């Protein structure tokens, strides 16, 4: 996993924009209609989900490489 993904689920409206634009199918809408992380290991930290989330509900931090 190259990144840590944080969700502020109380803000998420389940619009699916992050899911649609994630190139690695990391995200999905769960049974309650909110974004959930289903394939964390696949995340490449591209930030597309955070960039286009209209509700500021998803955040991606690149993992700092331990030296």
């Amino acid at each position: 996993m190259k990144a840590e993904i944080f969700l502020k689920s109380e803000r998420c409206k389940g619009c699916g924009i992050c899911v649609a634009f994630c190139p690695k199918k990391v995200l999905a809408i769960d049974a309650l209609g909110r974004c959930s992380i289903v394939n964390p290991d696949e995340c490449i930290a591209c930030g597309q989900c955070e960039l286009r989330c209209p509700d500021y509900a998803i955040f991606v931090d690149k993992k700092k490489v331990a030296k």
Partner: protein
Amino acid sequence: MEDRIYEKYFRQHRLPHIWCPGCGNGIVMKAIVEAVEKQKLNRDNTVIVSGIGCSSRASGYMDFDTLHTAHGRAIPFATGIKLANPKLNVIVITGDGDCTAIGGNHFIHGARRNVDLTVVLFNNSIYGMTGGQASPMTPVHKKATTAPYGSVDRPFDACHLAEAAGAAYVARSTAFHVQHLTDMIAGGIARDGFSFIEAVVQCPTAYGRKNKMADPAQMMMWMRDNAVMKAAWDKLPTDKRDEKFPIGVFYQHEFTEYGKAYNEVIEMAQGGKK
């Protein structure tokens, strides 16, 4: 989690915002605060002025001095603020109905006067707030509650209108092209004069559902596939343009800013006497 700079510009206690799932307004609101950050504007000297509409509700979520005004009248209010205190950076948020229908005259005369404002028009091609009536920017053949068989009215190109009316900076981008949109707004903030940025946004609820695009992500893919950078657009043959539309900076010109011209009059009238 690392702190996000854009978060400090929002009134945290007012989030989540009222906009529908997938509404593009939140994306443009973030692009505006990113542009403010990019241009290093002092927050205490920056005022956000909006009209009426879903888009105009943005001012209520932004942690600046903000003014939510009357339908179509954001530009006149903003003009008053700028003239009363020229030190302020004044950003106007408006919708396609707010700016080009009820506010159409204020828009062209604001551009003509060239007051130093940055006007961001959230263009969702519809009156979102009142349930989906056609606006002067609804494309031909697209459906609205007031055009159930598709609109027959020719739409305004608000960028052409702004340029013809005398704006000093004219640009367009979309909710898909977030970083580009931020740059377009930052360029408008930097320009001393009337700057106009059209942000194409998705309204899945009032526009998308009527026009076979109820899915917000699908609407953003439409933006991705149809927006063409200006340089490429200029070379695109007319028969290949179809639903496509240009984005980028269309026009920039240095005109005398209204406040400066007005100050000269004040000095003249006072005849050098203090």
